[in-house]
C-alpha cells in the first residue's frame, strides 16, 4: 500500500477486517466491525473518536493486550491474531511501549527504577538515565512517584515506555488526567520521542486539539474507520491550547 504522501513507506502494522465482539452477559457488543488500517514506520497517528467508538479496543489489539474475534493484524512479518498468551507477552516486552491515562507507575520504585524495571527485561534497551533525560526528568530520577506531580509521573511513564527502544509507542489518553500545561509537557515529550527515535506513535484521545500535532488523524466511529485525515502542517505541542 502506498503512503498517502505517495512515497514508499514501510507498514509496521497491517490490520485487515478487524472485528471484535465482546459477550456481555446475553448481549454481544460489537466493538470493532471490520477495521482496515496501516500504520507506517515513524509516523505519529492520533486516533480520535467518542467513547465506545472502538479506539481503545483497536489499541489493545495493536498492543497485544487482546486478540481480534475476526480479521488479521500483522506486525511486520508476524500475525498477532494467532499469538498465544506467552507470545503476546514477549511481543509486548520487546516491541511495544505503553503509556496509560493513570500512569500505572509502581509506587514502590523510584523514577529510575520504574524505567529499569523495563530495561532489565528488554533485549536492547537504552539506559534508564538516558530515557529519563529524554523526557526532561534528569534531575528527578531518584524520586518516588509519591514525590512527583501528575505530569512528571506521566513523563516517567513515557520514559519507561520508550527505554526499551520499542518499534511502537501506544498512548491511551496520556493527558486525560492532566491539566493543560502539564498535558502540553507530556505531549511534547511524546513528540520528541517520535521525532528523535523514529518510534511509530499512536495516541488515543477524544481531545480533538491534540490531533493537530499528528501526521495522520484517524477518526473512529461505531467500530469503523470513519475518516482519515493527513495534517499538512504538524503543530508543536507548545502551540496547542484547550
Amino acid at each position, binding site marked *: 500500500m502506498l503512503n498517502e504522501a505517495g512515497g514508499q513507506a514501510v507498514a509496521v502494522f497491517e490490520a485487515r477486517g478487524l472485528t471484535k465482539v465482546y459477550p456481555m452477559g446475553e448481549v454481544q457488543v460489537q466493538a470493532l466491525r471490520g477495521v482496515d488500517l496501516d500504520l507506517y514506520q515513524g509516523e505519529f497517528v492520533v486516533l480520535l473518536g467518542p467513547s465506545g467508538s472502538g479506539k481503545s479496543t483497536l489499541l489493545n489489539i495493536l498492543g497485544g*493486550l487482546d486478540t481480534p474475534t475476526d480479521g488479521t493484524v500483522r506486525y511486520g512479518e508476524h500475525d498477532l491474531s494467532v499469538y498465544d498468551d506467552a507470545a503476546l507477552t514477549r511481543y509486548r516486552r520487546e516491541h511495544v511501549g505503553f503509556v496509560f491515562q493513570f500512569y500505572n507507575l509502581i509506587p514502590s520504585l523510584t523514577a529510575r527504577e520504574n524505567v529499569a524495571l523495563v530495561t532489565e527485561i528488554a533485549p536492547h534497551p537504552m539506559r534508564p538515565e538516558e530515557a529519563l533525560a529524554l523526557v526532561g526528568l534528569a534531575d528527578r530520577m531518584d524520586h518516588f512517584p509519591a514525590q512527583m506531580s501528575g505530569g512528571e509521573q506521566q513523563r516517567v511513564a513515557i520514559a519507561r515506555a520508550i527505554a526499551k527502544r520499542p518499534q511502537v509507542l501506544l498512548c491511551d489518553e496520556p493527558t486525560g488526567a492532566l491539566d493543560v500545561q502539564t498535558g502540553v509537557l507530556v505531549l511534547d515529550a511524546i513528540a520528541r520521542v517520535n521525532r528523535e527515535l523514529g518510534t511509530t506513535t499512536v495516541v488515543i484521545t477524544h481531545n480533538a486539539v491534540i490531533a493537530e500535532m499528528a501526521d495522520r488523524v484517524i477518526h473512529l466511529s461505531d467500530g469503523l474507520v470513519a475518516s482519515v485525515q493527513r495534517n499538512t502542517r504538524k503543530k508543536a505541542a507548545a502551540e496547542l491550547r484547550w
Partner: protein
Amino acid sequence: MPMRAIDRKLWRDLWQMRGQALAIALVVMCGVGTYIMFLTTLDALRATQDTYYREYRFAQVFSSLKRAPESLRQRILEIPGVDQAETRVVAQVKLDMPDFFEPVTALMVSIPDSGHLGLNALYLRQGRLVAPGRADEVVASAPFAEAHGLQLGDRFHAILNGRRQALTLVGTALSPEHVQQLRPGSVFPDYKRYGVLWMGRQALGQAYGQQGAFNDVALSLAPGGDAREVIDRLDEILKPYGGLGAIERKDQRSHRFLSEELQQLGMLANMFPGIFMGIAAFLLNVVITRLVGMQREQIATLKAFGYGNAAVLGHYLKLVAVIVCAGIISGVALGVWLGKLLAGIYMEFYRFPYLKFALHPEAVVQAALISLFAAAAGTLFAVWRAAALRPAEAMRPEPPARYRETWVERLGLKRWLSQPTRMIVRHIQRRLVKSLLTVLGIALAAGTLMTGFFQQDTMNYMINVQYGMSQREDLSITFTEPTARRAMFELQGLPGVEHVEVFRAVPVRLRHGHRSYRTVIRGIEPGGDIQRLLDAELRPVRLPEDGVLLTDYLGYLLDVRPGDRLVVEVLEGNRPVREVTVVGLVKEYMGVSGYMDLAALNRFMREGPAISGAYLSIDSAYLQEIFNTLKGMPRVAGVAQRAQEIRNFKRVMKETMLFFSYVATVFSMIIAFGVVYNSARIALTEGSRELASLRVLGFTRAEISYILLGELGILTLLAIPLGLWLGRWLCFYIAINLQNDLYRVPLILEPATYAFAAAVVLISAVLSALVVRRKLDHLDLIAVLKTKE
C-alpha cells in the same frame, strides 16, 4: 419482603470473597472449637467426679494397719470431726486366670456381709453383691472383668494367704475409690494384670486371720471436720495396731491421678483456646481491616447515594458477623463433638459409671463474644477510616503510596537487588506492622503445631530414660513381706533367669522442717546393672555407702540439698523414727523416692539382710515357664513385666495425649493455612493493579508471581524460625505446668518435630501460593488501564 439492595450486595460480596471468608470462618471455628472442647470436657469430668463421689460416698480419710479389733471402730467414730467409718479387710492377692499365663494381681477388698457399704459404695454394673457367708463369690471391677471377658458365673482361682481358692464371679462393679486402678508402682492402668475384687468380710477376714478385726479403715468427715486433726487422732489410735499413717483424700491414689489429669486438662483448657482464639481474633482483625480498606471506593459510592456512616458501618458489621457467626456455630458444633469424643476417651481411662456431659451456655457466649469483639474491632477501625473521607475524595484515586529505600538497600545490597526484589522489600517495610503481624500469625501457627508433637517426643524420651537407662529389668518381683536374702538364690536357680538384683523397699514419711512427703526408700545393690540411678546428665550414679539419694524433684519438694539431714518415719514394723543424711539427688522423670545402698538400708532398719523383691533379667524364651513358677511361689505377691509397662505407657499416651495432639495438629494446620492464604489473597487484591500493569509492560506470569509470592515467601521464611522458637517456649510452658511428683515432663523436641512444623507452614504457603497463582493468570489486563485505583 424483598431483600434490600444493600443486603443483596452483602451476600454477593460474601460470595465473591468466599475463599477468604471460608478461611476466616475455619480459623474462628478452630478457636471456638478448642475452647468449647476443653471447657465442656473439663466441666463434664469435674461434674461427673463431684456427683459420683457424692452419690457413692467417697471417703475422705484412709488408713491401713496391721490388725485391729472391730471394737476400735467405736473409738474412731468418737474422733471429733468424723462422720462415718468403714472398716474393712484389704489384701493384695495373686490370681490364676484361665487362658492367661501371666501372673495377675488383685486388690481384694471386703464388703460387709449385710451388703451395705456406708462409704465407697459400689456401682453395680452387672449381677449382684456377694451373698452373706459365701466364701467363693466375688464381685470384680468392671474393667477387669471386661479385660478378661468374664461372664457372671465364670470361675477362676486366687491365692488367698497362700491357699488356692476357687472364686465365682457374681457381679461387676465400679467404685469411687478406684476410678483409676493402678497397681502399686505403676503410673498407668493395666486392667488385664491388675484388678479390684470385692469379697464378703467374713470370708476374707477368715482367710487373712482378721476375724472380728480389720486392717483398713476409711472415714468421712462431718461438716466442718478438719482432716489434719482427724488424721493425727486416727494415727494415734491406730499406732498400737500397726497403723501405717492415715492419708487425706487428696493423697489417695486414684483420686490423686484423677485430679492431676483434670488439672492438666485445665491447664491445656486455658492455654490452647487462648492461643487459638488469639490467633483467630488477630487474623479476623487484620483481614477485615484490609478487606474493608479495599472497599474504600464502594463506601464512598454508598455515601454519595446518601447512606449515612452508621448505615455503612452496619453493612460491613453485618458482612463480618455472617462470616464470624458461621465460624462460631460450626466451632460450637465441632467443640461439642470433640468434647464428647475426648470425654469418652477419659471415660475409658477413668471408670466412671456415667458421664454428666453438658454444654454450658457461658462457654459458648464467651467464645462468641471474643470472636465477635475481635472482628468488630477490626471492622470499626477500617470502616471508620473509609467513612471519614468525603465521598468525592474517596472516589478519587488514592495518591501513590509513599515508599522509601529500605535499610537492606542502604546497607549497600541495593545493586544486587532487581527491581522486582526492591518492590518486595520496600512493600514489606512500608507495611511493617502488618508484615510483622502476618509473620507473628504464621509463627504462632507453627508454634502450636509443635506442641502436639512435643508430647510424643517427650514421652518417648521418658520411656527411654526410665526403662532403657534406669529400670532395665525384664521382670520385677515383689514379696508379700520382707524376706531373707537367700530367696534370691532360689530365683537365680530358675531356668531362663540370667541375672538377679534384689531390693528392699521401706514405706516412709520423710520430714524436713515443716515439709514432709510419704514415699518409699529403696535399698538397691551398689554397682547393679539392672537398676541404675542417673545424675542430671543421665550418667549412672555410684551409690554412697551411707546416707540417702533423693529424686531431684523430691529434693525440691522437701527443700533439701546434699548434706542436709532428713527425719525418716518408717511406716512399717515398729515404726522407728530416725535421721539420715541426703548425699545427693538423682534424675527421675516418673515418681519420687529415696535410694540407699541395700546394706545401708538394712543397717538403718536394724534388721538382717532382708529384701522386699527382686529384679530379673531373663531369656524371653522362658517367660511362660518363669511366670508359671512365680505363680506357684507363695511369697511372691506380684510380678511386673517391663515390656508390659512400656506397652501400657504407650497405650495410655495414645489414647489420651495423642487425641489431643491430633486435634492440636489439625487445628494448627488449618490456622497456618488460614493465615497464609489470607495474607496471599489480600496481597493479590491490593497488588492486582500493579501486577496487571507489569503484565502489560511485558512481564510474564512467572515474573509477576515472583513479586506477589516473593513477599509471602519472605514473610513465611521469617515466620518459621520465629515460630519454632515460640513453639519451644510454648512446650516449655507446658512442661513446667505438667511438673508434679507423679511425673516431670522434660523439654524434649526432636528435630522431626521442628521439621514437621516448618513443613506444614511451608506446605500451607505453597498451597496458598498455588491458589493465588491461578488467580494471577486471570488478571484483567485491560480493565486495569482504564480504571484508577
